[in-house]
């Protein structure tokens, strides 16, 4: 895909000689295709950066997008794609920013002498621009993927709040479907909150969980066992009738884990446990 040294030098020559005309026309084409969603000044800056990076890449001899000398060009292209992806442009709009160069070059070459060599050059430049476009497209997709992954993670965190509801008592109200990944996040966050707040009691409320399968039940059980290893007790509340039936039908042993009908019952249960302890250490004062 690389250009020969000769082709490179002719490309540099063209880009240099017609610098102003190329960047102006390029900005014009982009402004039309993006319909004013980016300012002229912003587009001009990007185009000038690209233009400059291309000349730099071509100057060192054979123009090859994968070579070391094209490092700056790749960086500029990647930066452009990231920016477009973040601002919500489509992949086509992003790639077009690069492909527009083809039209510009064609116009420039047409006004020069048209012969067989020019045609060959144009084909060579063309395939180079194609390569740059594909690179842009890949960077765009990568940025989008990382954006999606970040959002998924944020969603996961938002959907699993661990709250301190009383001195020494934290609760996790679980809402929605619990898959393995989410169950794991819940487990880790709950245990960390126990440490951070020095709370010996945790209430896992599953009122908002529509269904429980073996895997989810296993995750909840493991959380309870892990909490116990750390010196904390878990109470499970809000088990709905259908879920109770599933648990029994699946043959899942909840063993000696305390279960309560509602979050309020669970809290009352914990307070009674801690209340007894508190009363024992601090006899009630006379009023």
């Amino acid at each position, binding site marked *: 895909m690389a250009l020969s040294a000769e082709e490179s030098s002719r490309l540099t020559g063209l880009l240099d000689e017609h610098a102003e005309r190329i960047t102006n026309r390029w900005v014009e084409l982009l402004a039309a295709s993006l319909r004013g969603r980016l300012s002229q000044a912003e587009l001009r800056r990007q185009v000038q950066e690209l233009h400059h990076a291309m000349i730099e890449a071509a100057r060192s001899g054979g123009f090859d997008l994968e070579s070391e000398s094209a490092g700056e060009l790749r960086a500029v292209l990647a930066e452009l794609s990231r920016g477009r992806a973040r601002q919500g442009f489509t992949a086509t709009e992003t790639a077009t920013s690069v492909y527009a160069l083809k039209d510009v070059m064609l116009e420039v070459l047409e006004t020069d002498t048209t012969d067989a060599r020019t045609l060959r050059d144009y084909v060579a430049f063309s395939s180079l621009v194609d390569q740059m476009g594909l690179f842009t497209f890949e960077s765009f997709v990568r940025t989008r993927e990382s954006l999606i992954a970040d959002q998924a993670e944020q969603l996961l965190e938002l959907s699993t709040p661990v709250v301190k509801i009383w001195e020494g008592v934290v609760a996790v109200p679980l809402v929605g479907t619990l898959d393995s990944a989410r169950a794991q996040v819940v*487990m880790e966050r709950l245990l960390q909150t126990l440490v951070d707040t020095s709370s010996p009691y945790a209430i896992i409320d599953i009122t908002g969980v529509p269904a429980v399968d073996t895997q989810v039940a296993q995750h909840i059980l493991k959380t309870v066992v892990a909490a116990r*290893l750390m010196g904390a007790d878990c109470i499970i509340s809000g088990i709905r009738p259908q879920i109770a039936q599933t648990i029994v039908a699946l043959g899942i042993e909840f063993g000696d884990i305390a279960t309560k009908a509602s979050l309020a019952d669970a809290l009352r249960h914990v307070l009674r446990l801690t209340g007894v302890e508190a009363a024992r250490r601090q006899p009630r004062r006379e009023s």
Partner: protein
Amino acid sequence: MERVPVLKIGDILLVSIQVDMSDQTAVQLQEDLAERIVATGCHGVIIDITALAIVDSFVGRMLSTIASISRVLDAETVVVGMRPAVAITLVELGLSLEGIRTALNVERGMELIAATRDDDHGYDDADEPGDQSTDTR
């Protein structure tokens, strides 16, 4: 070989494991503790593992053994400060640390030991730690 220090605070022996222990160090700690329980007549042992990045089956077994030995010597052992990642790993490993009492931190551990001693002796405070002169070896 490194040695884990054992501190005496009132009626309690406090062991704070700060190093990545070799198996030998762990065995040494087990022996040191048994001797110190007898020598001091303490009724509580707190093993702080806050700094331990992992607990494998060897350390797990050491903790269980210490708990059993101290029970025989009339002392209560509480393991405190286990990190969440360590607890999750132990569950996956299948190690349940049978017979070991745990608490979130040193403070909770002391409360637990105090409560246990209360249960054993009612509200009778005559059981002063210094009274028992068991160190006759």
